[in-house]
């Protein structure tokens, strides 16, 4: 069934979009990532103009994250206090990121920078997570108890300590604020919610339990992507509501299913799957940069008209 999208001005198959939304929704509910880093390239591939794809998908992520968060709230796996602290840092970071993005845009080559950002961050994060969770799985298989990591480094000497009951942490608010800030900057430059950077940062830098991380990440993604949606809708007029509705119907259902799968799985398994997925996307992007394309020219709408 073909549907004509009023803003994107293309006609697409409705069931294809429902399927794509559902697939990304499952991943979103399982891992606490918004799925933007997967959905953007997929939408480009089916012929949606890039500007519309980026803006509309932000709106769809609001829906699937909200659906996912409700499921996590019911299971009490959302640290609202930690989420709020991360969000404060995140919004400040996003504002700084937009300024930085516009500055780089004036220099040209922002497109290349975004791609390189993707390859570097996806590659590093994916590889680190993969190795770490593989080691964790090996240790459990051998039967040795995983030593609970109690770092008494600099992170515990900082002032403004706060108790995060759900995460079982008593740490300074400075590290979460900084994590939120840097993820916010990167998210704004890369045009995504930043879940795939936020999730590992919460696990490895803040030491939060994996189960709580997913819900908390989704919680803050809702606000960041809602902000992005409004920004795109009012400045670029690129949010296609028909496209968003088709994607989010699949997305919200997928997120519910994903959350249930995620709860049944072991933390290490969850991390290793996320790591593999991140590495696959990274590999595809790196491949595109390294291999000679069959068509050296590309046509795009001229910006600013």
């Amino acid at each position, binding site marked *: 069934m*073909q549907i004509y999208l009023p803003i994107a001005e293309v006609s697409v198959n409705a069931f294809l979009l429902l399927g794509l939304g559902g697939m990304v929704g499952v991943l979103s509910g399982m891992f606490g990532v918004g799925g933007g880093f997967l959905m953007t390239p997929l939408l480009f591939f089916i012929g949606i103009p890039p500007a519309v794809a980026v803006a509309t998908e932000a709106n769809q992520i609001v829906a699937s994250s909200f659906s996912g968060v409700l499921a996590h709230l019911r299971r009490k796996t959302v640290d609202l206090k930690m989420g709020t602290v991360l969000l404060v840092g995140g919004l400040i970071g996003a504002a700084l990121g937009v300024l930085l993005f516009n500055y780089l845009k004036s220099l040209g080559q922002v497109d290349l920078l975004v791609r390189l950002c993707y390859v570097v961050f996806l590659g590093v994060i994916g590889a680190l997570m993969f190795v770490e969770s593989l080691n964790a799985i090996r240790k459990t298989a051998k039967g040795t108890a995983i030593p609970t990591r109690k770092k008494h480094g600099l992170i515990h000497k900082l002032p403004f300590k706060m108790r995060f009951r759900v995460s079982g942490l008593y740490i300074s608010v400075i590290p979460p604020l900084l994590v939120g800030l840097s993820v916010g900057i990167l998210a704004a430059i890369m045009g995504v919610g930043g879940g795939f950077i936020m999730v590992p940062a919460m696990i490895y830098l803040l030491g939060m339990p994996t189960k709580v991380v997913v819900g908390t990440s989704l919680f803050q993604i809702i606000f960041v992507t809602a902000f992005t949606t409004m920004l795109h809708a009012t400045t670029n007029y690129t949010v296609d509501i028909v496209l968003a*509705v088709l994607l989010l119907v699949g997305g919200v259902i997928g997120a519910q299913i994903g959350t249930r799968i995620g709860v049944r799985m072991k933390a290490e398994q969850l991390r290793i799957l996320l790591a593999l997925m991140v590495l696959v996307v990274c590999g595809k992007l790196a491949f595109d940069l390294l291999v000679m*394309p069959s068509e050296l*020219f590309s046509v795009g709408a001229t910006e600013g008209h």
Partner: protein
Amino acid sequence: MLRWLALLILVALPAWAEEVVLGLSQNEVAITTSFNGSEILIFGAVKREAPMPEGELGVIVTIAGPPEPVTVRRKERRFGIWVNTEAVEIDGAPSYYAVASSAPLDEVLGIRENLEHRVSVTSKLNAVGAPDTVLDASAYVAALIRINTAAETFQLLEDQVVVDEDTLFRTRIRLPAALTEGAYGTRIFLTRDGEVVANYETTIDVRKVGLERWLFTLSRENPFWYGLMSLAIAIAAGWTASAAFSVLRN
């Protein structure tokens, strides 16, 4: 399902021995939510007030979508990776362009006539022109044509115009599903031995209607409320799915 709206407007050019009398299956294309492309039937007759002149008769039909500025970028290898380097902006390239002819185009239309009337896609785009600042601008124009032809937004339909008894002609041109709004300029040329002896111009209006129209207008005129509406739908959908699943589980 073609609507047969005959437009019988004559071109007042008494000096010419032959004139085009044209009909279109529809002079308006409405883009609805289920729009999946449209086929336009263009038909007409050659009107003569004198005996038929000498020379081979040719009929050419062109349809051009509204012009839009595009940027053509070229990739080059730098430091081992393929990056966009130079870019050329081409203003006024049509968003859609189809040429249908009664025989191969170079047989029914002379080179000089082609340039003068900008019939073929190459002469149409060369007339639009790229800035002189780039040395090999023609490579960018060629790339634009190649990419658009592959996407079927540029079509060359040779031998697709049927001519009966040197008088009646007809052709079908398919407009793709991914159509931009605007006035689609339609031209018909009659040629004798490659020389244009008569031409005729009209427009086909392509417009979004109903829900498509309403959403498009809202997004441009009230972007803030449009954005809020998008968010409200997202939140409502997220909540509905969550509620539905908890009902299912119990």
